[in-house]
């Protein structure tokens, strides 16, 4: 609406959008709608609801984030175990150095460097866009997003494994003649995973934040790109929706981690009874 808009039109639209009601009933209505999954209509894309816009993009982002999370777990846990079981050797030092680098180099650097090397100079991998989880275009962004996660999970696994290895029950397990594989899988791994799983909620959040950067660099049509676009266009319904959904997912992920806890480690029981 420009400054020359007809006053009657302005009135009609205010009435239609319910902007004449008092602020509390407007807020109440917004909350009711949100709880039913209706975030209103986008300012920028006229006539399209936020939920409809988000649904498609969220699926893209979710796939990308899960690919990165999968990468960081499937590489981080074995690497951490590997380093811990060879503590003090060259392999251990090398792994620790790699994790230090991976943790302190920001995605801001890895994304352009990876693009420059693999896409522009070597020209072996495609750079732009999105074609689903089984497309070559997912490889580079997933690696870039996975690197910090790999580093953190490797460090956590290494540290907790070192602690577990020193415990008495590991010696007991060995001395009762269990095979090395069984000891490592049933006794070491299971116990050393507890602190790592605590971190998972936070690493997922970390991955979600890097996806803002990575989606932008790699031109992936996901939530991150839409979010930045909406901030610049002051498209508040979308911004609100992304924040509400993102925050609830973060809180839920941490709740989930807390609930998995007692299942993993029977020593921790919610409700904290020391009697038995």
């Amino acid at each position, binding site marked *: 609406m420009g400054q020359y808009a007809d006053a009657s039109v302005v009135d009609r639209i205010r009435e239609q959008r319910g902007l004449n009601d008092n602020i509390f009933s407007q807020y109440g209505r917004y909350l009711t709608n949100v709880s039913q999954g209706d975030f209103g209509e986008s300012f920028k894309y006229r006539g399209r609801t936020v939920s409809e816009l988000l649904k498609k993009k969220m699926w893209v982002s979710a796939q990308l984030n899960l690919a990165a999370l999968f990468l960081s777990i499937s590489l981080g846990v074995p690497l951490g175990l590997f380093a811990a079981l060879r503590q003090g050797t060259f392999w251990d030092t090398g792994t620790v150095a790699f994790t230090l680098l991976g943790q*302190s180099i920001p995605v*801001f650097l890895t994304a352009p460097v990876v693009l*420059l090397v693999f896409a522009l100079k070597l020209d072996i991998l495609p750079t732009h866009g999105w074609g689903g989880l089984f497309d070559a275009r997912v490889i580079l962004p997933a690696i870039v997003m996975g690197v910090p996660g790999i580093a953190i999970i490797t460090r956590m696994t290494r540290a907790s494994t070192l602690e577990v290895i020193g415990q008495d029950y590991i010696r007991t397990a060995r001395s009762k003649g269990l095979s090395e594989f069984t000891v490592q899988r049933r006794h070491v791994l299971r116990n050393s995973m507890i602190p790592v799983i605590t971190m998972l909620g936070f690493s997922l959040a970390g991955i979600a934040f890097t996806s803002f950067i990575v989606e*932008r660099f790699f031109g992936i049509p996901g939530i991150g790109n839409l979010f930045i676009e909406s901030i610049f266009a002051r498209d508040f319904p979308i911004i609100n929706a992304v924040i509400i959904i*993102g925050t609830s997912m973060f*809180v839920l992920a941490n709740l989930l981690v807390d609930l998995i806890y007692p299942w993993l480690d029977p020593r921790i029981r919610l409700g904290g009874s020391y009697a038995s």
Partner: protein
Amino acid sequence: MLHEQVKRTLDESQSTPSYWAISIRRLLRKKIGVTCLVIIALMYGSGIFAPLVTPYGYNDQDLSNTKQSPSLTHPFGTDRLGRDNLTRIIYGLRTTVIITVVTLATGSLALGITLGLVAGYFGRLVDTFIMRIGEVSSAFPEIFLVLIIVSTFKPPITRWVRMVEDLVGFDILSLGVVDYLVISLALAIFSWFGMARLVRGQVLQARENQYVEAARSIGASTPRIMLRHLLPNVMSPVIVTVSAGLAAVAGSEVLISFLGIGIQPPTPSLGLMIFENGSISVLRSDPHLLLFPVLTLSLLLFTFNLLGDAVADAFNPRAR
């Protein structure tokens, strides 16, 4: 005789270097620590004295010289408006430096230590109150809430600064102070809790010591006990945590500016420069526009991390 002996021991104990002197000397003995300090001093120095160090102004446009590759006159090249890239990076560093320092000073140091001391010393309801607020605030993802705070608090603060401007007749808004203020404030609100929890834990231990009881018995006031007896004894983990948190705060500032809610143009900021040039087409045609800010940022964050490790080693009282 005995008197003299006591006097001598007292003199000797005075002449032994303090914990701080030892720790700082230990930090300076390490090559990594010194290198990090030098790099950070250089970056901070060039950031603080930016107007003196840089050959150009950060907004000096030269439309006949756009998108130049690095050369002698423009060591880091020029951007799409012909502005000197090096100058803009130095000013961007200044932004990051100011926000990092202000955030840590207000959030972690002032708020975090005070609330931690209070919670730990008084315990009970005060403790519960402060800790529950902190836990709730840390259950939410930081960046989103910073975003909300920045977007809701900026208009009133801008209005307020305009009023001050009218009173003093001096142009404040164009300095970008409002952005600095709002972003530091928002980041500080979320950075105090880690520090408060740490200090509280330390105080819970320290307040059971006999010197606290002794101080109380000779009639020292509560603020005096907290500041002179408890605070010095909890400082070493505080230093370690602050130095480890530098990189995180700097990173958040850059991410916020990258998302477009932080520093607004024309004030230069690393995040904004990365955002503007963060595309494959820029990377293909003039990579220097993206790579130099990104490399500077990485160097800063990497140095912060290394320094954090070095400080943790040097200031750890158990490691002597």
